[in-house]
């Protein structure tokens, strides 16, 4: 066996092993503890699980490429809220009054453009000023959230369009609309990172920026494109979710950045950049959602979820480091 192969295999499979453990645990524990008659592994329950994973999951795909590239984005929650407001509010603007249901694609495009623009602004600042992405997006997280509040105070922004709700609640081939969006985004980002020049360069930049520059890769544009992608995905996540719910509070999306980063880290992506896998992030998203649903299923208080996820994150970090040390030692021999 090649050195490091065992630890690599363990790392790649870890998240799926964890999901399997969760499923077994909650199925067995559910038999004794659950008040519900239904089994945990019920088909409807699992379909719902995918649907509920979508808002966090879609953003997590963007966060994975940002982190592979060696950056981080803390402003996704605020971008999500702004785009939700643009989506719902633009449908009531007088200039679109004559469009009828054609206002829906217009509102979608506006919301997605808003997301891309906000992401591009982040990316441009990171590129041109050289300020660390953590600080830039920490600032814009406050700033964008300020814009959300300035728009409508503390009032919720609401607009229900029944055509849109029907579309969002529809099921195609048994899967909900939101699930389809999650799957398509996952496939598209996987293709981007594994089959395109941009993806390969993003890995290279995150792994060793100096070397990437020396190899003639232009670091700035790649970073900016990645920030635009995560802005787009935050907007898409808002579009998918709020098409159905129809009402956005100015606080919505708060702490989303933490859930998203947790999912990505659970999936094994390194904060230092250069390593990470889209498929594993998909696993991380599912693992978190399974945990939330599972704990609710066995009757644990909702607050326990925060405690458990926080501790799991730390344990994963610890195990990951142990495996990495092992990998390095094997290489020496």
């Amino acid at each position, binding site marked *: 066996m090649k050195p490091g192969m065992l630890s690599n295999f363990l790392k790649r499979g870890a998240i799926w092993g964890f999901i399997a453990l969760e499923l077994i645990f909650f199925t067995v524990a559910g038999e004794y503890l659950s008040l519900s008659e239904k089994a945990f592994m019920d088909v409807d329950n699992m379909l719902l699980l995918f649907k509920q994973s979508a808002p966090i999951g879609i953003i997590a795909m963007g966060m994975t490429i940002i982190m592979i590239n060696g950056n981080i984005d803390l402003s996704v929650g605020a971008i999500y809220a702004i785009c939700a407001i643009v989506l719902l509010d633009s449908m009531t603007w007088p200039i679109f009054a004559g469009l009828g249901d054609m206002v829906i694609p217009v509102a979608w495009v506006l919301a997605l453009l808003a997301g891309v623009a906000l992401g591009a602004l982040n990316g441009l600042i990171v590129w041109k000023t050289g300020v660390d992405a953590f600080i830039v997006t920490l*600032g814009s997280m406050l700033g964008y959230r300020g814009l959300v509040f300035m728009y409508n105070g503390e009032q919720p922004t609401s607009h229900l369009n029944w055509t849109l709700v029907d579309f969002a609640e529809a099921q195609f081939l048994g899967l909900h609309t939101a699930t389809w969006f999650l799957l398509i985004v996952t496939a598209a980002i996987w293709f981007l990172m594994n089959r395109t020049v941009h993806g390969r360069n993003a890995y290279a930049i995150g792994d060793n920026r100096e070397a990437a520059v020396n190899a003639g890769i232009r670091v700035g544009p790649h*970073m900016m494109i990645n920030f635009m992608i995560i802005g787009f995905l935050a907007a898409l996540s808002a579009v998918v979710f709020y098409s159905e719910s129809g009402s956005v509070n100015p606080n919505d999306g708060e702490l989303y950045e933490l859930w998203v980063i947790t999912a990505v880290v659970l999936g094994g992506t390194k904060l230092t950049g250069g390593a990470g896998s889209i498929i594993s992030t998909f696993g991380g998203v599912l693992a978190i959602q399974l945990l939330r649903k599972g704990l609710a299923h066995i009757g644990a208080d909702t607050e326990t979820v925060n405690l*458990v996820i926080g501790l799991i994150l730390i344990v994963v970090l610890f195990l990951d480091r142990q495996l990495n040390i092992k990998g390095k030692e094997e290489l020496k021999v």
Partner: protein
Amino acid sequence: MAAVTKEQVGGFLARQGILVAFAVFMVGFTLANQRFVDPDNILGVIRSSAILGVMALGVTFVVISGNLDLSVGSMMSFSTIVVLDLHDKIGPALAIPAMFAMTLCLGAFIGFLVGYLKLNSLIVTLGMLSAIHGLTLTYSGGQNMDIADKEGTWFDFFGQGSALGIPVPILIFVLLAAVLGVVLSKTPFGRKVYAVGGNGTAATFSGIRRARVVFTCYLISAFCVATAGLLQASRSLGSQNTVGQGLELEVLAAVILGGASLLGGSGTIFKTVIGVLILGFIQNGLLLVGLQFYVQYVVTWIIIILAVWLDIAAKRGKLWSPIA
């Protein structure tokens, strides 16, 4: 008189930019509204900044040592809830030390993970943010916590009382800032904090026990958080479970505004205090000028990025980044 070159002016602006910006803001707000420089108003601003400020003092240590602490917000909620709960159960005189002990345990746990196990501080404190929030909710059962007898307790002294004509929160903030400022700049421990943050490997080779220094920094941070929780609890005598939510990022903003580098090794307590005051006075000034409360977030965003940008631009001698 020697001619002052453009570079010197630029260099001065970049180095002392944060103080210049502070002065410009103060003058501007004063011109816009006379009430801004009213002593009552100034004391009021400092008093309401004290809670954020006390937390920022501790986080300054953590940041200088090259780490991050994102858990201070939820840890502050925890200490506020705990001290309010214990106040009615065992009395304020025992509740305060008990709360400090529990908060310090959390700080020690984080310090152990980051210092001794050398785990990434961003993720550890992110996890602890979530975990401590869950702990707080489990402790309180999700209920708001209130002191039963709000009139007959001396517990409100820390948040609402005043000594020598100065509000107690300000006294505590100034005292803590003075003590921690001396610890950071005048003691061997302070030098070690800078050494560990500046170059951890070099510090280890010169015989500094990195793990112990980092551990102590998180203990100091937890102590400051417990103090902030005490001030918060004593000021309101009742609290929600989410009282500190989001504060971790405002605290970090104040520390960064003060010029501490997230890479570690730079920053001072004095500059952090300036950063806290800038945030406080901008918030107050914008309100007095008649703008919405939320405008401060947007202004803070612009100021943070400008401050950090100018700082690193001065270090590299060029305004725009060399990123191709």
